[in-house]
Structure formats: C-alpha cells, structure tokens
C-alpha cells in the first residue's frame, strides 16, 4: 500500500514593532523578567487594550506578501483558557473574521518550490503569551516563575491549507516563509528566541485517495531540523499504524528532540474548548483600501520575485542568484555595485567571493560590511581592474586595504604606487636590464626552449614588483627576443 502525507503548517511570527500590540510596553528581547510590563499586559483589573496601529500595518504587509486578501473588516476575539503565562485568562486573537484570507504561494514560484500551489488559509493578528521559568532559581525544584515581558508582543498566525506532502517540502516552505517575512521586515527570523515558531498538522492517506486522514497536530517544532525530523518521524509512525491496521487518533503531539520522537500531549477528548467570542473591548478593525494600497506600494520585493528578476535582468545563473539572495542584503550590495557601473558578472563574482568571505571571516553583517566598504567603493575598484590600471591579483590586496582603512581604491593605488607600468619605453628599459642579467636563459630561448620565455616574463614582473601590465610585458619581450634572433 502506498500512502502519502498531507501536511499543513501553523506559523506564529512576532511582528517587529517597537511596542506591544495592546499597550505601550517595549517588545525588546532579553530584559530582566517582568520589566517590560504595565497594567494592560499584566491583565490588571480595569485595564483595557488599545490596538497598536503599526502592528496592524506589519500584519497587513505579511498578509499581502503571502498573496492574501485583506478583509475590509476584521474582528478581534477572545480565546479563553487558563495558564499562568496568560495574564487575562484569555488571549486576544482573531477567529471568525481574520485580518486576511486566501493567500497563495504559486507552484514553481521559486527554486525550492514544489510543483503545486501552496494555499494560505488565513493570516490573523494576536498577542503573544508570557513565559514560565522552570529553571535557574534556588527553589526551582518546588516553584515555577512567570515572566510577562513577552505577553502582548504582536504576532501574526499564518495558517496554510494542507498542501504540503513531504517533511523536506514543509521545511523548505517554512524556510521560504522565514525569508519572506524577514525580507518584508516584519519578523526578525530568530527561531532561537522564539520570534518565529511552527506547528504542523499531519495526516496520512492512500495515494489515490481524495479524502483526508485523521489529523495529528505536532507542536514544538522550533527549528528547520526539528520540523523535518518530527514530520519524518510522524509520517512514518502513522504509516506504520496504517500498515498494522491500527486506528490513528486525533491528538496533539509534542516533538521531543532528546528522543527524536513525537509524544502524545492531549487527545481530542481533552482538547480545549476555547469558548471564542468577539472581543467587546475592541471595535472591529476597519481597513480602508487606501491604507492597504499604501502598504502594498511601499512593500519590499518578495525574495522569489527578486530572484526571478535578478536572473533575467543581469543574466545570472540560478545558483548565483540563490546565493546572492540567501544572505539578506547581499543582493542589494550587488545591485548597488551594478548601479555604480560595475559589470554584473564581475560584481557577482566579487560579492559571492571576496565580500561574502570577508563577511564570514570578520563575522559582520551586510550592513556593517557596507559601512566598512560600500558597494560604490568596490565598484570603483572593479573599474580600475577593468581599465587595466591594476591587475586582478593586486585588486585582492587593495580590497583588503580598503576594508581595513576605509580609504578609496584610487587613493590606495596612487599612494602605494600600485598602478601598472603601461609606458612601453619604461618596460623596454626594464626588459633590457633583465636580458642583460640572464644571458643563459636568452640563449636557451634562442635554442628553442620555449618555456624559458615564461621565466623571463616572471623576471621582468619581479623587477617591476608586479606593476607592469603583463600583456605589454609579453608583447615587448617577445618582440625584443625575436629581434635579437
């Protein structure tokens, strides 16, 4: 029996607002516990939520990037459950009318993509909960502590249709989503700090079947590796049960990275009844076309679209484009070099070569790289190579000096006397000197040992400390030797 997996993802992404979604507290990560809190995000009696406008703008941008339709009216709802990290005893979320619906990542839209559409069911706004601290206190054996700094951080929840079929595909999609949200500047992509989190719904069915199998929700998939491994494990577990003719139970399972397995968390019978109802403290969120249009027009380019454009516009290979866009900002560096008249091929080679190597070596980001050595400055170095003022080999050294000192390529070449010697008379004079000192080699050349020519060129270059234009040296040396014959 051949079966296939059917996978849908639920992604929670923190929005990069400076303040929380319903109060003015900071969203900065890593502050001492319970220092970014106020009566609103602590759920104090009498405190009321007020919607952060920029959280809505970020949410709209995420929704538009996923091809969703933004609802002209969406409604906040309360999701009721008890947990110590949830101060009000309910999470303000959206339920029946989310911020946006019906998005799409088209089949073959990008290098990673499956040959199948991936539909986005909905994108909605909600607040994050706080965190329980189970470790690190003297009495942690007996007590848990609550840190509510994160409570009220704005999130978008992105729900996909069950359009994914393999663990690897799901991981690729999640990777693209991360790249997209980061490119839109709505999420920092930091999975370790929990700014981006993923749950998956998995079921198994016979390959020919149109209907869906019993769905299992897998939680705690907070890295690409865990997502892929958990899904592989879960798919195999369900397939095995199907083979054995055992029923698959609708349940929520937790990925346990220590044992590399999923373990049951709660069954359907114990599923929460969240008792959703419209949030009476917040009026419906009404968005006019103009606001959505303004956000759409100011949106950065989506990575998939950008890759298509870079391929076409600069005639670059797909792999090069992927490499240019995988590290955010490299593509921008590249394009700015081209805007400063650099040859696209050369610029691409430099960015994926020296620039990327330097970023890794110096452990800096693209932004820091830019401030140390701007794309315009690097383009001017390339210009010197192209017009033959310096050799490609020398350019590597000049690049290093530019990065260290911040000086311009022109200044470095001039101050350090690196410019190639182009003057024929000067080169001829140097050749005469070399030939005078290497009579044996000259004789060997004339005796027909062609390899000696290379040795003589090397001697001339050495005499000029590499500054002579190698092509001129070649031509003039050949002419001189042949004249002596």
């Amino acid at each position, binding site marked *: 029996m051949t079966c296939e997996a059917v996978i849908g993802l639920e992604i929670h992404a923190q929005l990069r607002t400076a303040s929380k979604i319903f109060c003015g507290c900071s969203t900065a990560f890593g502050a001492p516990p319970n220092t970014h809190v106020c009566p609103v995000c602590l759920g104090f*009696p*009498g405190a009321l939520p007020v919607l952060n406008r920029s959280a809505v703008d970020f949410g709209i941008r995420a929704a538009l990037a996923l091809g969703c339709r933004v609802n002209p009216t969406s409604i906040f709802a309360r999701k*009721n459950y008890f947990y*110590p990290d949830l101060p009000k005893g*309910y999470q303000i979320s959206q339920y029946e009318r989310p911020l946006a619906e019906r998005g799409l990542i088209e089949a073959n839209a990008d290098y990673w993509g499956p040959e199948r559409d991936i539909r986005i069911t909905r994108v909605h706004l909600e607040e994050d909960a706080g965190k329980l601290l189970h470790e690190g206190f003297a009495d942690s054996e007996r007590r848990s502590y*609550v840190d509510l700094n994160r409570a009220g951080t704005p999130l978008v929840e992105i729900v996909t249709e069950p359009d994914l079929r393999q663990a690897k595909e799901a991981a690729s999609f999640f990777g693209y989503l991360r790249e997209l949200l980061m490119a839109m500047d709505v999420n920092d992509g930091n999975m370790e700090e929990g700014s981006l989190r993923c749950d998956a719904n998995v079921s198994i069915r016979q390959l020919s079947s149109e209907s869906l199998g019993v769905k299992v929700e897998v939680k705690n998939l907070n890295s690409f590796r865990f997502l892929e491994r958990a899904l592989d494990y879960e798919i195999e577990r369900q397939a095995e049960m199907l083979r054995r003719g055992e029923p698959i139970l609708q349940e929520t399972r937790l990925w346990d990275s220590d044992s590399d397995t999923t373990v049951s968390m709660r069954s359907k019978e114990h599923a929460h009844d969240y008792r959703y109802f419209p949030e009476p403290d917040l009026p419906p969120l009404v968005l006019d076309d103009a606001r959505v249009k303004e956000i759409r027009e100011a949106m950065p380019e989506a990575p998939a679209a950008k890759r298509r454009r870079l391929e076409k516009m600069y005639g670059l290979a797909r792999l090069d484009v992927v490499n240019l866009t995988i590290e955010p900002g490299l593509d921008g560096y590249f394009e700015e070099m081209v805007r400063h008249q650099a040859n696209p091929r050369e610029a691409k080679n430099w960015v994926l070569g020296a620039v990327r190597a330097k970023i890794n070596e110096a452990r800096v980001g693209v932004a820091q790289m830019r401030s140390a050595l701007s794309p315009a400055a690097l383009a001017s170095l390339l210009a010197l190579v192209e017009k033959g003022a310096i050799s490609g080999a020398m350019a590597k050294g000049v690049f290093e000096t530019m990065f260290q000192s911040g000086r311009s390529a022109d200044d470095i070449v001039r101050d350090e006397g690196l410019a190639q010697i182009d003057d024929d008379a000067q080169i001829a004079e140097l050749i005469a000197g070399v030939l005078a000192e290497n009579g044996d080699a000259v004789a060997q050349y004339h005796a027909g040992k062609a390899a000696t020519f290379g040795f003589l060129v090397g001697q001339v270059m050495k005499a000029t400390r590499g500054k002579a234009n190698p092509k001129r040296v070649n031509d003039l040396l050949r002419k001189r030797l042949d004249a002596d014959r």
Partner: protein
Amino acid sequence: MSHPRTIHAVRGAIRSGEQSAVDVCEHALGRIAAHDPALHAFNTVTSERALDRARAIDRDKARWKDAPLSGVPVAIKDVLCTRGVRTTASSRILDTFVPPFDATSVRRLEEAGAVIVGKTNCDEFAMGSSTENSAFGPTRNPWATDRIPGGSSGGSAVAVAAGLSTFALGSDTGGSIRQPAALCGIVGLKPTYGRVSRYGLLAFGSSLDHVGPLTHTVADAALVLSVIAGVDPADATSSPEPVAAYGAALTGDVRGARIGVPARLVDEGVDPEISKAFRAALEVLGARGASIVDIALPNAGAAIPVYYLVATAEASSNLARYDGVRYGFRAKVEPQDLLTMYTRTRAEGFGPEVKRRIMLGTYVLRAGYYDAYYLKAQQVRTLIRRDYEQAFERVDAVAMPTTPTPAFKIGERVEDPLQMYLGDVFTVSANLAGLPAISIPCGFTAGGLPIGLQLTGPMFDEASILRVADAHERDTDWWKRTPREFEDLRI
C-alpha cells in the same frame, strides 16, 4: 448648623467662603463615622487622603477656584480603580488589591477638584440588584434599614441618600446605577455606551458596563457627566462624539417634547403604588407641555434572558484573570499544583452569585452551544436596539418606572435569583442598546419607600433626558425629602 447637600450648594458655600473644603470634607467624614456603621455604604473610608486633598484645595485657592467640583466630596464604587487605595469589587478575591492607577473617570473627577471620601460597597463584581452579594456584608437602605438599597451600586446610592457624600460614582451593567438610585430616592444616570471611559472599571460585562453619577439633583448629574464624559485614548470603545453642554440643556422647557410610554410593558407586573406614581410623573411632564405617546417595544420582553446570556458570557471571560497568579487572593494549598491553585483560589475567592454567573457564561459560550445562546442573544439584542431606534423616530424620550417594585427586605430574594433577575426588567434594555437613561425620584409608597421614574433617550442625547428630568424635578419635591434619621441636611 445645616449643611449644603447638593454639589451646586457645596460649590456655592466654598466659593462664597462660607465653608472651606476642609469644613465640607470633615462634615462628610463625620457623617460617615456616625452613620456608616449602621448603613455599611463604605468598604473603605479614605479620611486622611480626603483631608489632605481638601487642605491642598484650600491652600491653593487660585488654582481650584474655578474647578467645577472644587472641594466636593465624592464616594467611588469599589469597582473603579483608585491609585493607592484598595479596590475590592466587594470580593474576597481582591480584598487586598491596591491598583497602581486611577480609573479615567476617577482621575477626571479629581482633576475637577472632587475629594474622594471612600470606596462604596456593592454586589460582588457588580453582580446583583441588592448589594447583598458583597463579601463584606450588605448595605442598608436609609429609608428602611431592614431593606436593601438596590444594587449593585447600593453603597454609592446610600452614601448620597444618607448625606455621607455629596455625590457618588457607580457602574451600571443592567441597571446598577438607576435601580439603587430609584430605591434610595436619588438621581442616577447611565450615560450612552462610550460616553464615559471604562478604563479602570473592573469589567463585568464589557459591552454593557457603564460609569455614571448618583446625585441628589438632575443639575448635579449633568455637571458630573460634563466632567467625566469624553473620549479616552485608553478605552477603544469610548466615543469621539463631542461632549454636549449638559448644564445648558436644563431649560425647564419641555413644550412639544414627546414622551413615549411602552404601555403594554409598564402595565404588567408593576406594583400598583409604583404605577400610580409613574402616571403622576407623566402628568407633571404633561402639565409642562410635553405630550405622552404610546409606543411599542415588541422585543423588550426578551431583554432579561438576552441580558443574562450576554452579561454572563462576557463575565465568565472577564473574571478569568482572577486566578491567584499575579495579584489578589491566592488559596493556601500544599502541594501547589497548578490546577489545585486555580480551583481553590476561585472556589474560596468568589461568592455564590459570581460563581453562578461564571458557570452560566461558560456554558453559554461552549463549543456547539455558542450559536444557540450567545449568537442568538446578540441577534435579539440587535432587535431590541432597533425597537428603540424606531421609537425615537416618534418620541424624544421613553418613560418607564425604573423598577417594578420598591425596595424589598434584606434576605427576601436571596434564595430566588430568578425573581431577583426579573426586577431588572425596565433597566436592562438601555444597557443592551447602549442608550442613555436616567432614574429620578417620582414619589414614595405609603410605607415611605422611594419610587423612581426612568427616562431613556437616543444615543448620545443625554441632554434631552436631562432636560425632561430637570423639568419634572422643578415641579416636584420628592428629591428634597431626606430619610428621617439622616435629615440634618440643608437643601
């Protein structure tokens, strides 16, 4: 020596120099000390804080001279947050809770010069109509101390009626300002939903909760409303609608005003003495040139069930935050597993009526029942709102008795919550529709118990009902009566 009773009288006395803010404050505190042990209107009396404030007002006369409530004592229902002053909702679960901020309405009163003399008793989390559901014991009606004062703002109503405070703030989710005002013989105003900020009001039913004043006169209510009304950036449901000049609306001229009376509704199940007083009140208005128009509110009969579905649903969610984790009461349980901490804290912290409503509301919102209860209730709520909208095409205000019966005896309905809920028949629809409504004194029973007239107006038209109420007040003197034991007051 007699003392000024109304806000306008207190202001006059302080402005003229006849009394200082400290004189007025000391007098109020003296009356509280003398009478509150018998009435139990207050959960907390803020004597020192009040005197400090009164002294500050006396010291800086230039600053406070023109403040609209300069030196006027106010009692605050214990569901409104007062910074640094314990705010309990008359619940054990909050009996030590001290808020770090002021409710917006409270802050606006203090900015206008009002002096808070204390926090008043109420039904726990404002859930009740008698102030019997208080963790700290019932409040007594000054007109008959074996009777309830109404509720849930019973402490606020009694504080005003017995002259312990010049005015008070209350909250009204289903009649909790108007009903105790009626049963205590004073004025109680529930403004339009969104007219007064709810920030700092401990939520019961968020879409039904309102903050409003309890006063001796309509003019006082208008003055307080003008201070506390207006948009608040901290309350997303507060309205940017401009605040009208309520005081200026009190012209006494109601010629041509059309007063709608839903005859079918008010002829049924109403105490005969109340019916009589209600008819007499309509005649007073008629004599001033208003016309009485028969109207229908076809869905009004559904108001109580709709109200108890919506209010309890919202309450079940609003009260989830009282979990013992961050503030307030936490049950002492060892070993402390989470579920035991939650269940014991809430079992010991909440009283029976609050538990009843949390359970009812939780039931209403259950998966699979939401459509049948909550959604259906919201649909009928829309019909009730439309009934009023249609009525207001023909009339300027709707008149009803505030309550079907006068104050009952303490303990009489404790065992019969449904009977208690039915007492809200005339008040809840204004909450469901969000309309402004006022209760004013319109008579007494033969036994000397106060009777209230309720006037309901169109959205954001507090001015109209205040004008009609004031006109009635000009030709009657019910509002001048004082409970015998507490009559050392000057009008």
